[in-house]
């Protein structure tokens, strides 16, 4: 409801706002800041791996303790404090109300609380780096008994603070998730049927449901681990009747669905962009929705493929091999649909489209290499090698980085009322795209050749210190530095465009969905008068119409 708003102080407007758009920016900027920290960590440990014993500029000597702390927190930060806040929270907050024609989330104050708890979780994470013994260092998967006993991990305090940070972060996303689902179900514009909802909203809502349904066991697990660490309980202590494998089940029951929690929003962003920039109706809308739901359901049935060689009953591995290979079917089908959408299009390679196409190209590599790992027989060899690492970076990087850049470059004009620079955008895309592939293609090979994970110096392993293996590790590290360098282009482009970018009109990309029918940037309350919906979101190039787009709110 567009009521008159009194002028607000800066603090009220930007820090304590209940406006979903401001909360999006809070999540987005926090996520970007933490991405810089996570990226810096990867630079430090990759330098040590490529040039063991070197004095890394900006850090110094990397001890084995440093190394384990850096890889642990790189993983945790990138997943929990970058991918989740940017893809789910930032885009979910921004897009759900604007794309379904609502003036805000249904619970704006819960939304504000969600970000505040998230910010607190990030602060707690930073505290964990500075406590006695240093930050948590037992990998982001936190397997006990290593992580449940100080005498094994030597980072007892850090591990406990880290667990508190993770638990707080989950609380934040549970609060946000309640909002997303309720808003999408109840606050849609008049006339918007389920099949008129833009795919990205479907994806974020399905992802949120998957998250909320999978996170419970891990929150319980985190509390049990905290009790083991601090109160001397024995949930995971085999000497006193506990079971360390139990943690792995609790962790991966959440951990695998989590992959799809971040994947789905990225595929949703891709769907919006490829339809706009190929001027095409999305191929088989309902198939996309159905594959997303199928993927969400199946994602609950595959977790033990992370544990094939972890000491579970070997017969159980067969069941999880079957479910894991089955999940390839809906995901492959979704990719086929996106590729089919390009057929007969009129494709413009603007920066957002490059990112969206880059997502499809790189995610396919991540998808196909997953088959090697899901097949139990091959996983015996590949488990816990760099092949696994390269595989999941080929899923998470397209999702969390390429997908996020696609979304940011696409909605930037709407968010900030200005355009980003196209030339700099393209330089940034190609630098990131080639840089990324140059990092991880060599790591597939070192993995197949036997490099196992989380080793700070391979010189103890004669078979892994050949000139070829060393060369590939160094090549990957140099590629990382180049790729990180190209991110400066983005930061420069982003910040200068905020101030000096060319002014954007309401609908610069000539798109159909509702967010493009209001001002750029949208005012508090989003529309002076809330829109009504008359058709689906992808009516591009409809025959016998002059315009090749047909906004959802225009009466026939």
């Amino acid at each position, binding site marked *: 409801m567009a009521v008159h708003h009194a002028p607000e102080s800066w603090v009220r407007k930007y820090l304590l706002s209940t406006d979903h758009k401001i909360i999006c920016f809070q999540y987005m900027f926090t996520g970007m800041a933490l991405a810089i920290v996570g990226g810096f960590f990867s630079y430090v440990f990759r330098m040590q791996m490529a040039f063991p014993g070197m004095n890394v500029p900006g850090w110094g000597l990397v001890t*084995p303790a440093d190394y*384990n702390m850096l890889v642990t927190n790189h993983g945790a930060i990138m997943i929990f404090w970058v991918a989740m806040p940017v893809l789910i929270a930032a885009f979910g907050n921004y897009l759900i109300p604007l794309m379904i024609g609502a003036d805000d989330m249904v619970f704006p104050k819960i939304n504000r609380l969600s970000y505040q708890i998230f910010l607190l979780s990030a602060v707690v994470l930073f505290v964990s780096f500075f406590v006695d013994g240093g930050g948590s260092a*037992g*990998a982001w998967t936190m397997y006990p008994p*290593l992580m449940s006993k100080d005498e*094994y991990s030597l980072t007892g305090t850090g591990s406990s603070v880290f667990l508190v940070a993770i638990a707080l972060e989950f609380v934040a996303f549970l609060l946000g998730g309640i909002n997303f689902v309720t808003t999408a179900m109840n606050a849609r514009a008049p006339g918007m049927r389920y099949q008129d909802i833009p795919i990205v909203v479907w994806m974020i809502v399905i992802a949120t449901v998957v998250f909320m349904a999978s996170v419970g066991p891990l929150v319980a697990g985190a509390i049990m681990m905290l009790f083991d660490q601090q109160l001397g309980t024995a949930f995971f202590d*085999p000497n006193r009747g506990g*079971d*360390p494998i139990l943690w792995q089940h609790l962790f991966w029951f959440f951990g695998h669905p989590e992959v799809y929690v971040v994947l789905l929003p990225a595929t949703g962003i891709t769907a919006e962009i490829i339809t706009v920039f190929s*001027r*095409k*109706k999305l*191929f*088989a*809308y309902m*198939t996309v929705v159905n594959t997303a739901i199928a993927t969400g359901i199946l994602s609950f049935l595959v977790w033990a493929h992370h544990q094939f*060689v972890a*000491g579970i009953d070997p*017969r159980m*591995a067969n069941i999880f*091999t079957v479910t894991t*290979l089955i999940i*390839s079917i809906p995901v*492959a089908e979704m990719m*086929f649909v996106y*590729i*089919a959408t*390009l*057929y*007969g*299009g*009129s*494709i*413009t390679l603007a920066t957002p489209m490059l990112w969206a*196409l880059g997502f*499809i*190209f790189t995610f*396919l*590599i991540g998808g*196909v290499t997953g*088959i*090697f790992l899901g*097949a*139990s*027989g*091959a996983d*015996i*060899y590949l*488990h*816990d090698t760099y092949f696994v690492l390269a595989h999941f970076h080929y899923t998470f990087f397209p999702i969390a980085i390429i997908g996020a850049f696609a979304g940011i470059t696409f909605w930037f004009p709407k968010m900030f009322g200005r355009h980003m620079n196209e030339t700099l955008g393209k330089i940034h895309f190609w630098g990131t795209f080639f840089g990324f592939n140059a990092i991880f293609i060599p790591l597939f090979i070192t993995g*197949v050749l*036997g490099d*196992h*994970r*989380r080793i*700070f*110096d391979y010189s*103890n392993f004669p078979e892994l210190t050949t000139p070829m293996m060393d060369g590939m590790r160094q090549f990957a590290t140099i590629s990382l530095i180049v790729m990180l360098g190209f991110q400066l282009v983005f930061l420069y482009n982003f910040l200068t465009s905020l101030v000096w970018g060319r002014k954007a009109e309401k609908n610069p990309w000539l798109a159909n969905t509702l967010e493009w029918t209001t001002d750029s940037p949208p005012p508090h309350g989003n529309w002076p008068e809330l829109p009504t919906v008359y058709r689906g979101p992808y009516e*591009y*190039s409809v025959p016998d119409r002059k315009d090749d787009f047909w906004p959802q709110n225009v009466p026939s």
Partner: protein
Amino acid sequence: MIEKWVPAISSYAANVDFIFDLIFYIVIVFWFVLVQAVFLWLVVRYRKRDGVRAQYISGELAHEKKWISYPHYLVLLCDVVILVAAIRVWYIVKQDMPPTDETVRIVAQQWAWSFVHAGADGRLDTPDDIRTVDDLHLQVGKTYEFKLESRDVIHSFSVPVFRLKQDAIPGRVVTGWFKPIATGEHDIQCAEICGFGHGLMPGRIVIETPEAHVAWIASHGPSGAGE
């Protein structure tokens, strides 16, 4: 193709290499190349041209949908082929236990491997057992049962040339088997992060001819069973 770089010297290494190759040909050489080729071709072919409008295709009609449903069935078929092959290899390596000649105990701890060899009498837990740290001595052609234990945290016994990996779980004895088929000396890795010294936990596996192995046993006096 793994065997070109990493020697395959256990009896089942060839099975693991086979499933890797099978997946490589089906998934990379066929699917990946095909899909990327179609994808890139579409991007080039349907670039925006003046005066050419995009087509209006809903993708809901049967003759349109077949373009994704046929590939869908083919994916399903490929999945079944890979599944059968993967489970077969898994069964050989992890589920089946062939008759074994000797048993070896492998004990992981922060941050070392220790091994208990059966010694001259070929039986474990007798006075002539030979205990070593970091070096596992095996005789080529013998089938070994291993009993894998951990004293503290989870470790993972990984021998790339065997294509074998198995986590060691404190409080449990995990059994398995291997049969070395060529002599030589190779790396043993710990493949599960186990604390600050995770990178300092290399072991060596020494596979000897029967004569050399007997000589090695003879050169080691019994060092007592168990602890």
